[in-house]
């Protein structure tokens, strides 16, 4: 499925862009992330647990950042292998633009789910992907705008 949404973030464009590249930001923003290791250059490894309605799945995944146009856009590509449950993969193309109230972050997400999870119905899967993306960028906005600073380093 594909979907698109945007958020206005009360922070300058450069700050927003740098924020995305920080590993601790991924840690804080990926919904259900239990464990994130790695770096923006080499990619991140994560264990993610997600629940939508009757489905609760645990994925071992990798997140890479591609097509970086500093300050302007990048692609976040996440891929999770769920053992017998199947796989989940999402790519978010993030574009930043100046906005009177800070920065407009637009994201276009293309999500794919496969294997047993896909078999159980697109109804749930669409909800799954939508929820993941919305939560990610909502948390991202909160983290960047919030008084609470991003934790400098979590133990791996």
């Amino acid at each position, binding site marked *: 499925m594909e979907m698109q949404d945007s958020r206005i973030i009360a922070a300058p464009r450069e700050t927003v862009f740098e924020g995305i590249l920080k590993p601790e930001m991924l840690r804080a923003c990926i919904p259900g992330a239990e464990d994130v290791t790695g770096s923006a250059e080499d990619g991140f490894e994560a264990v993610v647990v997600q629940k939508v309605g009757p489905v609760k799945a645990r994925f*071992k995944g990798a997140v890479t950042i591609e097509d970086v146009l500093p300050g302007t856009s990048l692609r976040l590509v996440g891929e999770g*292998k769920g*053992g*017998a*449950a*199947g*796989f989940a993969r999402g790519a978010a193309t993030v574009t930043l633009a100046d906005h009177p109230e800070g920065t407009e972050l637009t994201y276009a997400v293309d999500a*794919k*789910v*496969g*294997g*047993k999870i*896909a*078999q*159980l*119905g*697109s109804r749930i899967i669409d909800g799954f992907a939508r929820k993941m993306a919305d939560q990610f960028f909502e948390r991202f906005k909160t983290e960047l705008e919030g008084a609470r600073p991003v934790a400098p380093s979590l133990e791996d």
Partner: protein
Amino acid sequence: MTELANSGIGAPLPREGARRLAEGRGRYVDDITLPGLLHIAFVRAPFAHGRLLGIETDDALEVPGVVAVIDGRRLAEICAPFDTNPPGVPGHASAPQPPLVVDESCFQGEAVAAVVAESRAAAEDGAELVFLDWDELPAVCSIEDAQAEDAAPVHTRFSDNLSLRHRFGAEDVSEAFHGAAHVVEADFSFGRQTGVTLEPRGIVAHWDPRTEELEVWQSHQVPWQMREVYARQLGLSPQSVRVTAPDVGGAFGLKLHAYADELAAVAVSRLLGRPVKYIVDRLESFTADAHAREARASCRMAVDAEGHILGIDAVVDAGFGAYAMHPRGSFGEAMQAAQMIGAPYRVGAFRAEVRGWRQNKAPSGAYRGVGQPIACAITEEMIDLASRAADIDPAEMRRINYRRTLDEGTRATQAGLVVEELSLDACLDKLLEAMDYTALRSEQAALRAKGIYRGIGLASFVELTGVGAGLYGPLGLTVAANEACRLTLQPDGSLTCATSVTDQGQGTLSAIAQLIAGEFGIAPEGVRMVAGDTGRTPYGGGAWASRGMALGGEAAKRACARLRDGLLELAAGILQCEPEALRFEQGEIIGPKGASGLDLAELAALCHYRPYDSPTGQVPPMTVEESFVPAALPYIASNGVHAVHLEVDPELGTVDLLGYWVVDDCGTVVNPLLVDEQLRGGIVQGIGAALYEECLYSEDGQFTNGTLADYVVPMAGEMPDIFVEHVSTPTRATGLGARGVGEAGTVGGLGAVRTALGDALVPTGARVSQQPFTPGRVLAAIMAAEDAE
């Protein structure tokens, strides 16, 4: 008929073994257990197309109860991949299919690794912890995508996706279309279906290293075929393999094939020297059972002003899936879908081209009717379109064109079909009377004026039943198509019939027992049937293509004749008369002077214990074996006509079935109790195809409705009562005269719903080409027609 009824044929007797099933005493594969039994759960490919880079099994092996995790490379050492390219099908190409993926996987759900454990639950625990490392490859799923010039290959060993190309009939039929009074044309799309047997596939395999014998219990239609398959793939002597099919919870063609996962289970047992069980669960059954029916077609029909069919020109493109199902291939459906177009009718010129396309989807295979439902649906809708163009009543249009028999001097139709002894006129007469066709037509007209859209649909069909060696031999398939009967007179005077025919609930065994009982004038309880076990039955086919009674019944009849002739000769010697003067009645020999005092038990005791009492000193054999395959015909054609009455709700798009009638000719009806509900069951599957059932894949080859809640099969609430009537034209091909009936319901059901829907939609100007006719599709067609106005 009186004589026949007395002899057991034609009596609506309850089925042998029925009480056992009604009391929950069936014995299905999952009910079988062995000491030391291990269980398998498979890790299956999550992608439609991928390259397997590695398998991580460490975590899985830590799970309590997990004994082994076995991958495709390990199995490849002891087990050959299926190679399904019958030499007799020119231009056919399919990739070899290993029991487990070795490096390239070609459909979502293909088995990759076997987790073997003390329980199924532990095996599944382990399977969750096997992580697969993949490169995803481009997937090609729809028939259109597979056809595209630049389509990625479904399997990297091929450069394109064309698996079969064939033409039936003439190269050029354009002549017939020039100057025809009417030419009609339509496109068709048939949704991919699967059989959904209520009992999923399952297997217990035991390679015993002590005896070096492989014993297999499998929910299957053709144990003899499977004996050959397992022996061949594992490099064993067929004589060291025994395959038993216990009670089978529905098969419908789905359990006619050899499956990679089941072969893997057998190979795992061979590897570990332990008995293993693998029961396909419902989620797996959707992605890993054979699929069927996916096809697109276009057809043109030319008729003259009086409605005579001048020509048919059709193209059928079939979706084969990733591999050809072993060993019979996936081409049968496509071939019959094309070849059977127009079969019930005299057709001036005929051309049907068929192409089969590989796709990154589950392999397609045999499912009840094999292509014939598609051919029937195309034909019948074309007839309706032509009848509207020519302004001829659809029933009359059919009658005008019915094929009574082959034209003089020809051996086959232009499509190469040998169809004889048809009774379509008689079937139609009976049908129209039963449904009160004229009254329904007037009611339809009256209701149309009120905006109520009812449709009346007819579908005539010719079905190829009892398919024999004439089909498989020339294709180069090592499939026995004869059916055999080994009949034994036991010392106590009871009879044992070991038959190669198998029974998945059709009641064939019961009908054969009834037939045998009739031959000796005894009660069917006096005949013990043995079937479904290569260790105990004579070599032969099994169950497919509506063959049980037509072929197995004939073999039994012939065995009875031989046994009886021997016994009568013996009795004649004792009674000092001619054997021709004797006959069996209630197990007793009746002679010119009435009851002789000799009965089966007495003769059996004499032969077994006191052969010296025989006047000649000789006794006839107590066991005779007969095998039958129709010599003259590759198959026995049966025929019939279906009718549907339905109402379409043009606002909701829903279809409500109001009535269903069928008149079928399956020749001699041995047991109407079995035959009628067999027809109804087939019809309900046809209705399922027409209205509900479809395997929905996403563009990237993910199966998206793979649960029984999402893949919709017919339930009791929506099904109509179905009126069944018969015309009986015994076939001359056998002494028994029975034709097959197992698929007749499915072959005509789809077409009849299609024509009824088309008829109902006439006032709206809409036509639904894509099946199943879901509310969404019906509504889309109606809305498109409204927009066009």
